[in-house]
């Protein structure tokens, strides 16, 4: 019988990505309900040293494969290594992050393991011994409860939503042979172009400041950038601003852009079209600054200011700088 809650931990340049701890926390909770163990799979190069760290986040055992072939993620070797281990161990549940890498890997694994997966989940629970996942559909206009009928029951988890757990127990670290020598490499990463802005990616940011049509033009985004600097935030944009060519595609938050869930989302001059709300409504705290009192975004906001953003935003920046200077 299938047993155990498994996860694929994600690391980059030898450090765990925060979402891996969130996935571990979710796995721990499910495993405690089922009375099963939490096992993590860690792939990478020169990463053996970090494996034990997962114990602190609720993992009982970490299976590690350290190989130069894992230095850069490719679907070919990662999916082969994970699938081999999963087939050998037959877990009941397999969780991944709904990150760029997690999305690519998890859906390939669905194909290899011929199973079902609920992707980009916001909640997981056990009902009658089976995994029931809640996930936004229609870009968050409603939610679906999904039951996976085959094992491993797979789910990918939206970053920034699942709480981490603290655990006193150290994790047991086990090396495994990923048997990837026979894997035919059909794809190759030729070049990695790093973003040099120094800002955290939108999907990983704790704080996001976004500007929309109300910014009136690309030259005015310095107002947003300054606020973002004061908050240590990442800058986002609405579809209107991206389609107008004011901001790059990679900045777009919404149904056809990035789905984000930061602790704080500040929407400046964004009316809140349904496709934008879809991309950010799971943010923990939403601030809207908009001069139109009827803008739908104000209905979604925890705090709203109905005023000209060009007056308010610089004042907010000034206020934050005062706090910083006072060292608070």
């Amino acid at each position, binding site marked *: 019988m299938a047993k155990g809650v498994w996860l694929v931990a994600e690391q980059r340049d030898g450090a765990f990505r925060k979402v891996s701890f969130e996935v571990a926390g979710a796995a721990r909770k499910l495993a405690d309900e089922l009375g099963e163990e939490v096992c993590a799979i860690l792939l990478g190069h020169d990463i053996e040293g970090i494996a034990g760290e997962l114990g602190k986040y609720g993992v009982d055992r970490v299976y590690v494969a350290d190989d130069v072939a894992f230095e850069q993620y490719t679907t070919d070797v990662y999916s082969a290594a994970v699938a081999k281990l999963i087939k050998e161990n037959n877990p009941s549940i397999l969780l991944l992050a709904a990150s760029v890498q997690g999305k690519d890997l998890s859906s390939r694994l669905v194909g290899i393991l011929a199973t079902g997966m609920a992707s980009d989940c916001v909640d997981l629970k056990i009902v009658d011994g089976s995994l029931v996942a809640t996930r936004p*559909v229609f870009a968050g206009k409603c939610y679906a409860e999904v039951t996976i009928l085959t094992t491993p029951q797979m789910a990918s988890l939206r970053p920034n939503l699942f709480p981490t757990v603290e655990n006193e127990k150290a994790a047991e670290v086990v090396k495994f042979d990923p048997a990837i020598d026979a894997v035919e490499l059909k*794809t190759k990463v030729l070049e990695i172009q790093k973003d040099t802005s120094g800002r955290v990616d939108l999907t990983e940011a704790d704080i996001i400041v976004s500007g929309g049509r109300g910014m009136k033009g690309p030259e005015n985004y310095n107002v947003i950038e300054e606020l973002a600097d004061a908050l240590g935030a990442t800058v986002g944009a609405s579809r209107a601003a991206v389609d107008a060519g004011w901001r790059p595609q990679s900045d777009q938050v919404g149904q056809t852009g990035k789905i984000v869930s930061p602790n704080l989302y500040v929407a400046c001059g964004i009316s809140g079209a349904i496709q934008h709300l879809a991309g950010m409504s799971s943010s923990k705290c939403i601030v809207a600054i908009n001069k139109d009192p009827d803008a739908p975004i104000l209905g979604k906001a925890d705090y*709203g200011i109905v005023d000209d953003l060009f007056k308010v935003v610089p004042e907010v920046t000034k206020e934050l700088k005062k706090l910083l200077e006072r060292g608070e």
Partner: protein
Amino acid sequence: MHIVACVKQVPDSETLIRVKPDGSGIEEDGIKWVMNPYDEFGVEEALRLKEKHGGDVTVISVGPARVVDTIRTALAMGAEKGIHIDDPALEGADAYTTATALAASIKDIPCDIIFCGQRAIDDDSGQVGSILAELLNIPQLTIVTKVDVEDKTVKVIKPVEGGQLLIESSLPCVITAQKGLNEPRYTSLPGIMKAKKKPVDVKDAAALGISVDPKAKVTKMIPPPGTPPGKIIEGDDASVTAAELVRLLREEANVI
């Protein structure tokens, strides 16, 4: 080049989605059905590659009778032929099952690249392209914003957290399209007229030789949780409202 573009018909992104009172699904009346925008990027890219390198484009869709409109749209854009997989057993099918049907319809046609949207804007699942690639035992290039084909290889740009990757792959492969890949063309009247005469094969699960064996099912649809009304910070003096906002974010919301 022989290119396949998989398309899904979905409610337009401006559609108000209403959950049926019993939670069994969504109300379908009044929905405007369109081609999934990410699939449209795939169709457009397929047509551009065909125009550059020669060849043909086949468009495939799974769904009920109304799906033909979406296939005809792709044919009007310039695709040569359509395959319509129509079987009640595939209605609301999970990603694996849908990919199985697509794979069965593709396996016997020559094909260098298969385009899918990176996700559909109805179920937001984002799995079908990769599962399809696995079932056909070919590589996948997911969430891609640029495609260049040279001889028997393809180079793509894939945005990742904190940058982008340049990836090379052998052909055939599956590519899933992300916004930014291109600007899809509009259909022209002559295109629409021509599309009416282009062939569309209709197949069901039996004709494809697949068994429908669900891996996942949606047990309940739930309306989104209502948001409690927020606080509007009143006042005409921006320095005062700004200071109040910062205080609330710090003392009440504890987010800064």
